[in-house]
């Protein structure tokens, strides 16, 4: 169906090939997952399949790509789209109209399909993707997941044999992402459409794929099933495996799960096989285990009491906010943020997480209630005073980057802060070394990878060394190597007694690096407390480890906890 032979491709003005001697076959009805770190060539490979490379981008190309026997190298993209549908990363950047029906019908109109036939196809696709309820809505009113479903419908309506998707869930929250991927899987199963899905956070789709292809630096380093990949150990090295698989591999277990369900089956079997089942089970624990659990709970209480004596860096009192549409986006929030804590704010999209941190950073004014930073009401503070104490990396790190290279970007912040040249140079050097971006500090910004750009954006704020650092979804689109650097920054700030507030959907990241968790829903504070208390009490808002070990050991929240239990079992 798709046949790629010895494909080597370089973008115009680039000497280094983005893809190097890539060979890939996609069979009819197959679900192929293309994984790899940022900048490994996933998007380039996807674009080579639908002919955008080289027809739209130009550049140097060697080897061959054919879809249904048609060479993509000398066929127009417009003709290829009858066979290959393409869904892009950002739903915002691919939708043209405001009316969902016009958007879905656009491709058919371009192909000159007769209206009667076109209507039938549009209706069928809308029904199969369950989009009927948004027919009369405006696209700008829809959620990210719904927009991405419209993008999928708009290619599906052209009845392609293959659908290629370039990180379609990277802009979506976990719930929408899961819904989108399940829709995709049902299309693959019910209609037999072949799917080529490029993703770098593959824990959500690992179990859906028939085959996984791993790219590294433009080369295919692995191609095989999920079982084979775990045995090969390649993905573990590059940090691509789903979180739940990692402790099982590290503990040396023979069977490796890729989903929570698989993990629970493996644990149940091990218990049935009598492998130290009492030690692994929270319910049926031995006396020794029960007492150890009790100790853990006592420790938790002590910790909660400890926080009450520490300095409150930020206090939010009865905070209300509305964007002017009459619907409150924050309703009476009360929260304290202690110095030296990493506080995670979690909750579904639209729950008010970003609104809360924007109020703390002084970007929004409270409608009602007060916010105190170091005991001072921020309404009485000037913008300059707030900026000196509180820095924020917004949801879109790209918005931070306006200079020619990373060094100049950091210098801009230092200049704004009024640091003298010597102080600025020292700070810039320290940050560049800490985040490992010294090697590309003078490189033009457009030559940096997404992960590197994200790091520069974070550096542009922390170079000021604010007492309060707010990170709004810092791990979205990041691979594990960049996350590790971020974790290092958080640990260093913690040592210095500085507060960090992280808004995120990445619950594994929350479990590993945060001290306290605040959960919001529909603008209300649902719960707040120590990380372990909040996550181990949740059913959905918790880590894969907790979901997997629930009933075996309810206290397992982090990878370290899981590893400990597995080692005891194994």
């Amino acid at each position, binding site marked *: 169906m798709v046949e790629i032979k010895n494909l080597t491709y370089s973008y115009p003005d680039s000497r280094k090939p983005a893809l190097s001697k890539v060979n890939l076959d996609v069979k009819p009805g197959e679900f192929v997952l293309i994984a790899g770190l940022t900048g490994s060539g996933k998007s380039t490979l996807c674009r080579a399949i639908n002919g955008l490379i080289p027809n739209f981008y130009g550049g140097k190309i060697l080897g061959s790509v054919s879809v249904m026997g048609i060479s993509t190298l000398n066929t127009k993209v417009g003709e290829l789209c009858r066979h290959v549908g393409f869904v892009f990363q950002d739903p915002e950047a691919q939708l043209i109209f405001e*009316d969902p029906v016009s958007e879905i019908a656009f491709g058919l109109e371009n192909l000159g399909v007769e209206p009667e036939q076109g209507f039938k196809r549009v209706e069928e696709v809308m029904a199969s993707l369950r989009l009927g309820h948004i027919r009369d809505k405006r696209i700008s009113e829809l959620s990210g997941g719904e927009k991405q479903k419209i993008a999928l419908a708009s290619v599906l309506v052209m009845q392609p044999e293959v659908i290629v998707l370039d990180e379609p869930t990277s802009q979506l929250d976990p719930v929408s992402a899961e819904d989108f991927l399940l829709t995709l899987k049902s299309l693959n199963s019910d209609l037999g459409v072949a799917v080529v899905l490029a993703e770098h956070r593959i824990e959500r789709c690992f179990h859906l794929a028939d085959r996984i292809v791993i790219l590294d630096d433009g080369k295919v380093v692995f191609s095989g099933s999920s079982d084979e990949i775990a045995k090969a150990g390649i993905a573990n090295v590059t940090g691509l495996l789903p979180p739940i698989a990692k402790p099982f591999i590290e503990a040396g277990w023979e069977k490796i799960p890729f989903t929570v369900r698989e993990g629970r089956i493996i644990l149940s079997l091990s218990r049935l096989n009598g492998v130290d089942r009492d030690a692994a089970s929270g319910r049926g624990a031995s006396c020794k285990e029960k007492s150890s659990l009790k100790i853990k709970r006592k420790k938790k209480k002590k910790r909660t009491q400890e926080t009450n004596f520490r300095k409150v860096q930020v206090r939010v009192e009865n905070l209300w906010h509305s964007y002017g549409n009459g619907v409150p986006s924050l309703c009476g929030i009360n929260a304290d943020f202690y110095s030296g804590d990493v506080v995670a704010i979690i909750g579904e999209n639209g729950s008010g997480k970003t609104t809360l941190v924007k109020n703390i950073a002084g970007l929004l004014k409270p409608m009602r209630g007060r916010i105190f930073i170091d005991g001072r009401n921020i309404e009485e503070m000037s913008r300059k005073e707030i900026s000196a104490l509180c820095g924020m990396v917004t949801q879109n790190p790209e918005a931070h*980057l306006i200079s020619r290279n990373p060094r100049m970007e950091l210098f801009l912040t230092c200049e704004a802060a009024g640091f003298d040249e010597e102080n600025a140079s020292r700070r810039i050097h320290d940050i560049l070394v800490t985040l490992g971006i010294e090697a590309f500090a003078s490189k033009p910004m457009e030559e940096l990878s997404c992960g590197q750009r994200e790091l520069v954006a974070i550096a542009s704020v922390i170079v000021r060394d604010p007492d309060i650092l707010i990170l709004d979804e810092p791990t979205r689109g990041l691979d594990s190597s960049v996350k590790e650097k971020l974790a290092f920054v958080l640990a260093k700030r913690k040592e210095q007694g500085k507060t960090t507030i992280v808004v995120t959907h990445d619950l594994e990241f929350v479990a590993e690096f945060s001290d306290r968790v605040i959960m919001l829903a529909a603008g209300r504070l649902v719960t707040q407390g120590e990380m372990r208390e909040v996550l181990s009490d949740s059913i959905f808002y918790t880590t894969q480890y907790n979901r997997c070990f629930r009933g075996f050991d309810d206290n397992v929240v982090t990878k370290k906890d899981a590893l400990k239990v597995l080692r005891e079992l194994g």
Partner: protein
Amino acid sequence: MKIAFKKTESLFHALNPVSQILFCATIFLMPLLNSNPLASLSAIFSVAFLAASSDVFKEWASWWRVCLFMFALTVLVNAAISSNGTSVLLKVSHVPIMGRVMVTAEGIIFGASMGLRILAIIAVFTFATLSIDPDRILSLISPGSSASALLTAMTLRMVPSVARDSKELLEAHVARGIDLESPNCIKRIKMRVPLLKKLTTTFLDRGISIAEAMESRAYGSGPRSRMKRYVYSVYDYGVIFVSVSSFFYISIISALGFNSFYFYPALSLKTRAAGYASFALLVFISIVFFIMSMLWKKSLWLKSKT
């Protein structure tokens, strides 16, 4: 104060875009052809009824604070500048720059009338923006010029995206401590220029992404077909008939000078019965449409005729 198309379940929204445009054009014609303040008032009242019937009254009325400021400004400027008219209310022998100033009752009323005219025109456009789907207008003109229609559609979608991008950009830089509101003008410009550059780059990047997405969906691969066609309902025939008839009636009455109003040298109302009838007609049509809309909302049978 956001003026953008709002989709609601109303009779006006259910109309064909041709009927919607003709209805608005008829109301727009009244202040356009007549300086008579009653003409402007009749247009404003008509639009108010239409806005209420289309469930966009709140959004439409939100614009009035700015409009009233414009109205007051027009009256003040005209009163200060124009010395025409016979009924002198105030005489100042010397005002710096302006010299001798004479405020007349005719000047004030002329300013108020012009202000009302501007308000009426804004009122019609605001209502049209809120109630007529731009995509539907574009699909209407696309058979004649598909490329222009598509370009307009893309531009319309780009506007909110660019607004959002610029907001994100400003917030990101304020959050990192960059002073964009410095009292020093040079410093302020120096800080804002890179943001403008970045915004332009983002805009171009979006353009490339859209072009890529369009090419991936066969744009430009051959002759296009047209999927969406709007049917005409009994309401459309009614609205078109009434709008076209009123359009010609208002045009003829205005051309014959039956609703004239003279401001200078002294105020003189030369409006005849036919002129008053044209003002009343406009308001009457809108009230009837308002009642029809209310009934339409409640009656499934009436809705089934859409």
